[in-house]
């Protein structure tokens, strides 16, 4: 919030932006609470950005620091780009949640604590010798103490839901209280509860009672007289919805199928944080979407490739460890020159690493992580809503150039939300490519590797087409498709495959530079750091400095003008959530002395970090 609130003010105070973090035990329903508050804010019309942070364990030991789950939402009356560097408000459902999050809270921020959870046992589990809400250690903050469990239980008296079951509704109590504090509409949450629990009337009633009790407590208690208003944002006119990256990606896959006039076949093996794409697509059988939960990552890639051979839009989604397993099949797709869309929702690695945290450290694996000379196109998603268009672009390239394409997302994009102006589906590009239906060789033969002069793509002839029976395979072949081990032929074919991918540079837009006149420093980003970089750049500009910015959609091949653009700047900063991967690629490709700004903490960049780094080098 812009200024420190004062308690005397009984009017709703208008603030431009506020970041609220809901934190509790992983069994406390904090992701749900955050999502409800977010949806109400979205429907109210704020711009927003969210960040989910949850443990890899389904239920880590209750009350402990590793078990803390949190959801941060940044709401504003204007265009915002990040979930907020620091929360202004922390809702702490237990001592561990307070301890795990207090360091992030803005100076003089507000803490709303569930005092019922601050008993001896929970304090000990969280490692507090004395209660922080009693010992004065939080004096620098404004602490609002609420016995949420007791109040929830009392609100549910007579509802038929009691005891431990009643306590499960306390997240809705918290949402209700925040709904009051930030003057959100009640209807979106009530409607959601009514529809979600339509078949469980007891739970529906309990959650409604708890939600209203939280709201009413705010309305009737002196402590909460001070409320805040964040007016709707002046976003570009249109109809919006709030969307996670994984959801937008799933819908984008369906849209890509329509734009390509191909049935969608999505094969996947459950893996965090990509599983939600499978879940979403599996719901839509009526669209003709085929989902296939394979026995492993390898089979998922294989089944998707088999579907591509059959003439479907074959897609497989995974995260880093799964991409490693799929590499063998990706190479086969590359060699047989079949379209295959591979989605990597990156997470912290190596190995199991940080399964629920974000990272951008699979770029070089996407680029080079296969055997043999195996170049393929790489497309990156920048924001949750951007996933929709990015996946259509990836599918376009895969089909047009008959090649596997890797689409890079990450855990932050996948699980975060932002408002998304509904796309005009009638304006989707036509990315369809006709199947081969007639012989293309002498004497009515079919030559599966006879290339299109412009794209270098081979024809896509699907089983069931009479007269085009042919054999594909992983062995090197000559131009006719026959197996060949001839030395010159292998080199020729290797160069052909390489040239086909390089040639895509002529079919993608030049990179756009967001530059101040006379700027000498350029910040080059890709993927989910889009918001933090742009926010950082805006702050640097607000401080009167000049800076230029590029955000890459295509990572292989690079846009045709990238080298020339980079050559025009004295210093190039490359912030990445890895140890410097894109920076290696641009250094080797363009021989520029780019500066790496790496971060590997499992968390996105903060705008302040980008701002500080830029101010340091400008």
């Amino acid at each position, binding site marked *: 919030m812009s200024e420190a609130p004062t308690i005397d003010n009984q009017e709703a105070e208008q603030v431009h932006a506020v970041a609220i973090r809901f934190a509790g035990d992983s069994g406390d329903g904090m992701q749900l609470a955050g999502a409800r508050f977010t949806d109400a804010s979205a429907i109210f019309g704020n711009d927003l950005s969210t960040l989910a942070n949850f443990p890899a364990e389904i239920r880590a030991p209750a009350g402990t620091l590793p078990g803390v789950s949190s959801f941060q939402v940044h709401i504003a009356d204007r265009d915002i780009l990040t979930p907020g560097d620091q929360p202004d408000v922390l809702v702490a459902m237990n001592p561990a949640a307070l301890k795990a999050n207090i360091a992030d809270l803005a100076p003089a921020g507000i803490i709303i604590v569930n005092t019922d959870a601050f008993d001896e046992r929970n304090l000990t589990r969280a490692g507090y010798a004395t209660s922080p809400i009693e010992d004065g250690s939080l004096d620098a903050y404004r602490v609002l103490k609420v016995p949420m469990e007791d109040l929830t239980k009392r609100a549910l008296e007579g509802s038929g839901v009691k005891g431990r079951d009643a306590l499960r509704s306390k997240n809705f109590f918290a949402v209700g209280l925040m709904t009051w504090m930030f003057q959100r509409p009640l209807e979106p949450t009530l409607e959601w509860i009514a529809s979600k629990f339509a078949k469980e009337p007891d739970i529906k009633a309990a959650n409604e009672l708890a939600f209203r009790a939280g709201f009413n407590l705010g309305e009737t208690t002196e402590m909460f007289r001070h409320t805040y208003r964040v007016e709707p944002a002046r976003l570009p006119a249109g109809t919006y919805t709030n*969307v996670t990256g994984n959801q937008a990606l799933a819908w984008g896959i369906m849209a890509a199928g329509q734009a390509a006039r191909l049935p969608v076949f999505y094969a996947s093996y459950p893996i965090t944080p990509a599983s939600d794409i499978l879940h979403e697509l599996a719901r839509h059988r009526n669209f*003709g979407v085929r989902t*296939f939960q394979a026995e492993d990552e390898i089979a998922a890639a294989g*089944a998707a490739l088999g579907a591509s051979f059959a003439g479907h839009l074959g897609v497989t989604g995974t995260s880093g460890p799964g991409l490693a397993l799929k590499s063998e099949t990706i190479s086969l797709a590359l060699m047989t020159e079949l379209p295959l869309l591979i989605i990597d929702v990156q997470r912290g690695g190596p190995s199991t690493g940080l399964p629920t945290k974000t990272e951008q450290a699979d770029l070089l694996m996407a680029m080079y992580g296969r055997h043999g000379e195996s170049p393929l196109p790489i497309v990156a998603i920048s924001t949750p809503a951007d996933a929709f268009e990015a996946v259509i672009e990836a599918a376009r390239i895969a089909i047009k150039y008959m090649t596997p394409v890797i689409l890079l997302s990450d855990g932050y994009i996948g699980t975060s939300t932002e408002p998304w102006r509904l796309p005009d*589906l009638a304006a989707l590009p036509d990315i369809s490519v006709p199947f081969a239906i007639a012989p293309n060789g002498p004497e009515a033969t079919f030559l599966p590797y006879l290339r299109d002069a412009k794209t270098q793509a081979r024809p896509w002839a699907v089983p*069931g087409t009479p007269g085009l029976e042919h054999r*594909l*395979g992983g*062995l090197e072949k000559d131009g006719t498709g026959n197996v060949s081990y001839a030395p010159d032929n292998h080199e020729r074919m290797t160069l052909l495959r390489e040239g086909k991918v390089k040639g895509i540079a002529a079919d993608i837009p030049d990179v756009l530079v967001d530059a101040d006149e006379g700027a000498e420093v350029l910040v080059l980003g890709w993927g989910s750091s889009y918001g933090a970089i742009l926010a950082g750049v805006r702050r640097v500009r607000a401080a009167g400095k000049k800076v230029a910015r590029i955000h890459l959609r295509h990572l292989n091949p690079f846009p045709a003008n990238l080298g020339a653009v980079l050559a025009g700047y004295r210093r190039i900063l490359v912030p990445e959530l890895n140890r410097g991967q894109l920076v290696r690629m641009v250094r080797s490709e363009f021989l520029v002395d780019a500066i790496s700004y790496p971060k590997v903490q499992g968390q996105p960049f903060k705008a302040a970090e980008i701002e500080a780094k830029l101010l340091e080098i400008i």
Partner: protein
Amino acid sequence: MTTEARYTRADFQTDQEVRWCPGCGDYTILASVQNFMADLGVDREKIVFVSGIGCAARFPYYMNTYGLHAIHGRAPAIASGLAVARPELSVWVVSGDGDSMSIGGNHLIHALRRNINLKILVFNNQIYGLTKGQYSPTSEMGKRTKSSPAGSIDFPFNPVSLALGAEATFVARTIDMDRTHTTEILKQAYQHRGSAFVEIYQNCNVFNDKAFAALTGKDERDQNRINLVHGEKVLFGPDRERGVIIDGGTARIVDVADAGIDAIHTHDATAPSAGPAYALSRLSHGPFGPTPVGVFRAVDRPVYEETLQQQIHDAQAKRGPGDLAELIASAGTWTVPDHDERELPAHS
């Protein structure tokens, strides 16, 4: 099967030079399959052969149908995607003992349990041929090869037992040299709805010659070959003087004269329980003595891709064909009205 002579074997041959070693059992199997396909009369363009890696995996190059020579062990996975996407196709997987039971073991068992309409032919020669003679997952214990100079210490798989354990709905065994029997098994596999697992004993005359001599040798075959015929007593021997009884879940070989003909097991490939078929598969753990061939099991179970199609059909009947715009808007929307395009202050 159609009777019109629409195709001949030549229609299924390609212009590729067949590159197996002279004398390899694969030639015989290829001839059997090509003849079978010609007789079957299914549109050539609707047939797809998918293979992994190994000697057997060259098969698609020699079949004038659609084909994909893929990755070691992965053929069942790739073929699964193909068959699920396009249920009208006739999809065949050609594999070997290493391809299907070692590197591809996982894909094999899952394709079988799902009952996807794949016809999986495993050319079992009990040796790695393409890599020149290492022991395979079906090689017998003690086998001396380049990678087991002191004798293999790996206990082998019994492929039929494995397939039955993997919930396969169709399990059969045949022998490369017996083309009539092979053709009959192929026919039954084709007619089966769902996954069909066919083990074909295949002689590798270079690295494991005469591995199946007990079943193919002139002097031994009559003693050892147990033909399983649905609905018939399991009898074998030159004068059908020996038979199989199943007692307490275990199959045993007896002299018919001792046990009496009534005690001899009557083979029922359609039995709801896989128990009797499994018991029969345990009569030999390799083709070294009396060994059953034929269809062990052929039962009905829903076919994966048919059920999936049904789900799509039902969902469309209930909810319509799906409107993406409606779906995207379904999570709740709000509208921002037109307003003056005021320059907003920078903020994050």
